[in-house]
């Protein structure tokens, strides 16, 4: 595979063809903030925190580094006034959902994000999709998925599959940045697994 040389924050970085900018940066020991990235999963491009500036002069554009593949001689900047300002706003939008998330709090401190800038939201899911994607791509069980769209989008366990598989797996649990996943699981278990108080009728009732 071809070697590609690009510049990240003024430093020369050697990468393999097909690598994403995020992977290349990580391999060079540079960190770019991200929430929805996982090395075992297809890049999602959902949280947009990993945006970087690429190009020079009049052709500078903002791109999502977890998805964009490296190009020869590409000049990348991981921090700038604009990037930082946008990351701050994005973090504040997330903090409206999950102000207690440790991961978010660390990032908030770095970017000066104010957890009270926006009105609080009821759900503390931040839609990173790690649980859904891990279950689909790595475990191939599809016990949890997304439902609906836009502001009504949520994660949802399939009770029949979850009741069978989750208790012996639970590999997605530590991935959740806000612990919403665990809460959703517990709720589904209580309400919808057969044998539960209000789930599908079971022989024991």
């Amino acid at each position, binding site marked *: 595979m071809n070697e590609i040389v690009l510049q990240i924050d003024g430093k020369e970085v050697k990468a393999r063809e097909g690598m994403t900018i995020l992977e290349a940066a990580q391999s060079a020991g540079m960190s770019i903030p991200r929430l929805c990235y996982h090395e075992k999963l297809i890049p*999602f*491009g*959902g*949280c*947009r*925190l990993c*945006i970087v500036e690429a190009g020079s002069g009049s052709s500078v554009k*903002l*791109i*999502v580094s977890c*998805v*964009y*593949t490296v190009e020869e001689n590409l000049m990348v900047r991981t921090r700038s006034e*604009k990037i930082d*300002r*946008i990351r701050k*706003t*994005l973090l504040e*939008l*997330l903090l*409206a*959902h999950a102000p207690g998330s440790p991961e978010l709090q660390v990032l908030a401190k770095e970017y000066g994000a104010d957890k009270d*800038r*926006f*009105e609080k*939201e009821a759900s503390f899911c*931040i*839609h990173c999709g790690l649980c859904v994607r891990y279950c689909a791509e790595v475990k191939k069980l599809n016990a949890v998925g*997304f439902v*609906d*769209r*836009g*502001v*009504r*989008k949520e994660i949802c366990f399939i009770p029949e599959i979850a009741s069978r598989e989750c208790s012996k797996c639970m590999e997605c649990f530590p991935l959740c940045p806000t612990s919403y996943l665990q809460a959703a699981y517990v709720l589904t278990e209580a309400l919808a697994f057969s044998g539960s108080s209000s789930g599908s009728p079971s022989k024991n009732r």
Partner: protein
Amino acid sequence: MAVLKSPEELEKLRQEILSGRDPDKSCISVCAGAGCLASGVSEVIAAFKSEIEKQTLKADVDIKGTGCPGFCERGPVVVIYPEEICYLQVTPNDVPEIVSQTLKEKKVIDRLLYVDATSGAKAIHEYDIPFYKNQERNVICNNIKIDSKSIDDYLAIGGYSALTKVLSRMSGEEVVEEIKRSGLRGRGGAGFPTGKKWEGSRNDPEKTKYVIVNADEGDPGAFMDRALLEGNPHSILEGLIIGGFAIGAGEGYVYVRQEYPLAVVNISLAIMQARKYGLLGKNIIGTGFDFDVQVHQGAGAFVCGESTALMTALEGRVGEPRPKYVRSNIKGLWDKPSVLNNVETWANVPLIINNGAVWFTQIGTEGSKGTKIFSLVGKITNTGLVEIPMGMTLKDIIYKIGGGIPGGKKFKAVQTGGPSGGCIPEEQLDLEVGFDELTRAGSMMGSGGMIVMDEDTCMVDVARYFINFLTDESCGKCLPCREGLRQMNKILTKITEGKGKEGDIGLLEALSEAATEASLCALGKSAPNPFLSTLRYFRDEYEAHIREKRCPALYCKELIRYYIDPEKCRACLICLKKCPVDAIDGGKKKIHIIDQDKCTNCGTCFEVCPAHFAAVKKISGVPLPAPVPEEERIIT
């Protein structure tokens, strides 16, 4: 009907069809588009059929339900050929008179003609009506001439001659060059150079390629594609087959939104008819080109109008857009090179092939060639579809063609580009319509929706409306769009409810930056446009809502109060009786007063107060006048 095995056989069939038709024979063309159908045209067509039968004129008069000619405000529209007499707002009761007077005695019925609102002049022929006269109807002109469900009608007007020209005398490369030379830019919204898009796909070494019709016309207020696809489906099909040949695709898709059931029916029928004639399928008219088309219906998601989301939906998935770092004409449907174009773009292709790229470049401006169909709707006298050469001014479109603002109201803004676009105020009306010109003014061409607004439209509410729309339609995958719009929607709604505060505009601007710069797709990236453009031109309205709790347009429900002017009230009892919550106190000859505690701001009283009294008023941002003393309430 045997499959046509050569271009010559097609021409022979065309001549046969034409020779079987008498151009001087009377033909009643009645618009059978969705708009006129909603206005009861089925009954009109049935009435014509039975009247013609009754008067034993069946051999002398044809009657056909045609495609939409665009003058939807005045539907049902009837055009009588060969004279091209145009009757508007025809009801079944008018039919016997039309048959006996116009068809038999060749007399024109005055009261069914178009009347100019200012001059009072009547127009007999379709081409005299100012609405049509000032248009350049290259693409949509054929709608009224054909039965949308007849392939023979399409052949009779020269249909599929561009296809035979391409398949028998041109190479794929030549077709791409011709489209490039024409300067055609996509009519769906972004205005990307069509030839360049095709070239990218053509040059890709991948063997499997696709061409796709984007008929997921989701911009509210836009219905051009509906009229074209319903009214002249073969014209789009012809363009698509030519495109498939040009790039080397063997399969095409038509993705139609399911909210257009008639369009789904008509294009599906057109495909079946084309297959029967050998214009689709294997070895198309004996030229060795294999190509077929499938229809896929949308399932109610505006985001599927975005090209990558549409392709994802064609793959049987949720319509989540993909990053466009590798363009979809290289990696599109099933990761193969895919040329996706809008309905109107495809409809222009046979015209360009038949008339030549040079002809096309002579219409329009330097940067925007050809014509564009707009749906001119909202607060405008002549609502409907208008096709104009690029470069016409907004002023001419709104006043010369549109007939200005009805009800003596003042023009305020025209919104173009759907939820991705912006509002253009009066001072910019001399703008010459074109892709780049509209973008510079803070809006965009979009698919062609042109919504006219008057003094009664609240611009803050317009921004709220579009943001609310997009919150509902966002796919929800990326953060800046999903959460950014969520918060923008909340803030804008609060402002329209009188709960806005200092700092709200700054917050909205920060959210706008995040969405514009960091969203995954064009929906999110352009979502802040309605807010940004209304802020640019109507900042005073935002400030009035936030600082004074006042809605200058007297629209926002929570910021207005209904008040009956005691000087004007004639105590007619109409509003009193119609009030759904009995909030009006009064009696015969006793001036009516609205009990503000009971009033729900439904606006019924305002709607029903007779125009010559106009006693009900809307008040905003100022205290209500003191109530009239009891003794002064009696009218003597």
